[in-house]
């Protein structure tokens, strides 16, 4: 149960984890994922609207049971303040990707067409390459990537997903933060 996390019919889940902004938090969390063999697709860490709280966004393809177990294990970490599994229907999720495509004079216009269709931007042009910046849901990024693959991807970097729920509330609304910094 606790093992074998990535099975065929595993669904994609997005977790938002609010943690105290403290040294070592990431090491504790990353260590937990590794030890409980919880394979994640992406992980981002960033500051939040409150200086004493940081936010992790984790995406993973997992079955329900290992997911529950990892949430419980995460909850045991004292620096973890709140974990929410985001509901795709009420969540806006975005990822940023920078792609250097091997586009030359011959096929550049085809690539530019794709860029327009996906509302992406060209941020650098060279005789042998185009660098594209795209933002969107993971699905959109994946679709764009699939199409660009055809022209030859020289270099690729993805930010990993970040996500917020729709509406006026913040996840941190009811979270008591730490009043102590630098521990």
């Amino acid at each position: 149960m606790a093992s074998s996390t990535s099975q065929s019919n595993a669904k994609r889940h997005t977790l938002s984890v609010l943690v105290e902004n403290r040294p070592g938090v990431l090491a504790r969390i990353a260590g937990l994922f590794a030890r409980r063999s919880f394979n994640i697709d992406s992980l981002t860490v960033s500051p939040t609207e409150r200086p004493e709280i940081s936010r992790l966004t984790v995406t993973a393809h997992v079955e329900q049971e290992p997911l529950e177990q990892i949430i419980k294990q995460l909850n045991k970490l004292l620096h973890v303040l709140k974990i929410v599994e985001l509901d795709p229907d009420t969540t806006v999720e975005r990822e940023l990707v920078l792609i250097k495509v091997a586009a030359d004079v011959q096929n550049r216009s085809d690539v530019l067409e794709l860029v327009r269709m996906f509302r992406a931007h060209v941020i650098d042009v060279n005789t042998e390459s185009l660098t594209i910046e795209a933002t969107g849901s993971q699905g959109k990024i994946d679709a764009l990537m699939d199409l660009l693959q055809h022209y030859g991807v020289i270099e690729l970097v993805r930010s990993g997903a970040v996500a917020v729920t729709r509406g006026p509330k913040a996840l941190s609304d009811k979270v008591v933060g730490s009043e102590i910094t630098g521990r």
Partner: protein
Amino acid sequence: MARPTPLQAFSGVPKGTAQNDETPANGEKMTGAQALVRALEDLGVKDVFGIPGGAILPVYDAIKEDTKFRFVLARHEQAAGHAAEGYAVATGRCGVCIVTSGPAATNLVTAIADANMDSIPMIAITGQVGVNAIGTDAFQEADTVGITYPVTKHSYLVTSAQDVPRVVAEAYYIATTGRPGPVVIDLTKTAQTGEMYYTWPQRLVLPGYNPTTEAHGRMLENAAKLFTQSFRPVLYVGGGATRSHASKQIKELADLTGAPVVTTLNARGIIPDSDPKMLGMLGMHGTVAATGAVQRCDLLVAIGARFDDRVTGKLSAFAPTARVIHIDIDPAEIGKNRSVDVPIVGDVATVLDALIPEIRKAQNEYGIHDLKPWWDALNKFRTDYPMSYDRPEDQPTDGTLSPQWVVSQLSKSADPNTIWVSGVGQHQMWASQLVDFEKPNHWISSGGLGTMGYGLPAALGAMVGSQRDHDGSYPVWLIDGDGSFQMTSEELAAATIDGVPVKVAILNNSVYGMVRQWQTLFYGQHYSATILHDGEPDADDAPGESGYVNVPDFVKLAEAYGCVGLRATTKEEALDAIKKANEINDRTVVIDFRVWKDAMVWPMVPAGASNDTVAYREGVHPLDNSEKASEETLSSEGF
């Protein structure tokens, strides 16, 4: 806003944020080291174990004649940690140890991991190099917090003296509440030597720590109902019940429901062995009655237990017909290994106090099934497959003592208040099977981690606890193996010098017996690296084949440390030595019992096999006589 605040998440050490901008106006001025000692005193800590060194010297300097706690000097940091564990189990209070940085901290890791596995409340204080030296590979620098992340309940790296009392107060609170466990305080030299203003009590700031202690009303109702529907209930009680001091409640629950009680290794003594409802330990070396009860039950009530593989055997075949109620203070344990019908998160004693009236109510409403057929079956297991070693194949063939007989004699002649401690191996299993446990917290043994070398230091810690709480009137008997004993025998020095007399029974089979048992059963009697030459039967005559016998000579070793050393090769000598040891209370006594190296621990479920395959003796499978059972017994696919 949206200006990123410094993100601390990636670093291990605080970044340049203002730390002590709110220097308290009041408070007593002192150093961080003095604050540490003062905070431990203010917490009511009475006994501390440890070894000093460069990076913790300021703290040791702050320990003075008038310091309110006793300090016991260990001879190895691992032992200081195990002593703190033994103390904690025996007294029910937090164990505390203080060691230096680098190698001392790494030496302590085994004890920290052990405490983590067995949920033992402990504060491990380690020295650390100065803040500016961190990350420079300074002398005796080790990333203690990093090394111990996976084996602690929580940890602190303290960089400022002003933080010391709050961190100590928080660590104590975390270690002793919820599911207990070890907390590491890695104290930089900067924090020790820096000046601060001491105040007490401290306000704890733990926004991410809210252990649930009280159960959900609805779940209690559901659980109560299941009890009334059951024809074959079993209470499967683990170490969590011991930590929660829930003996009274377990007894009450068993009496109210008529359910039999089986325990894990860590819960031995939770209710007396003389109680007719007690079937003994279950699992790999459990009684047939206990293991059988669980395999056949229709309601399994797990209480402070975590479905460890040594208990369950092959998980998918464990208690296959049971509905499961799982009571545990750690939500992550519930559903981890076995899915549950009624999950109840909370402190065992608190939950049972609330559950018992619910069951009474449900019994009045729905009645209760007659459990007589169930008890008839269980009693048949008990009489047909008793926990005893008097069958012909159990008797030594080489003139040595039977180790099981020795344990029975020790149990028979011991003071009823005795605290029993063990090492890890066959002797540990025999002790857990054959000592008559009548009280909780009188059995101290490394369960989850199975740490050889745990015994002597844990016994020392237990005796320090006995001296604190009972004027030393509760004797401590350590039943150890010759292999286990050699891992921490240096602590005989601490026992003698610090006046902590314990009684040590070494069941000396001259081998790593438990490993040998597996080699006998599963590795074609290839005794690779398990022969110790520390107690060959021909010790007093000619040297054995190897030319080495009695290395070490445990009697001389004991004497070298100022202890009484006795050797027993015959029953008369054994009884005499036990009698002497029971009479000597001012010095540590070590008895070298020469026992049979081919003695076996029975019953046995091979690792990874179904508990249905349990062998009472070789070829005797009381729960399943199909061919499959005996086949599975012969191979060790597990671990």
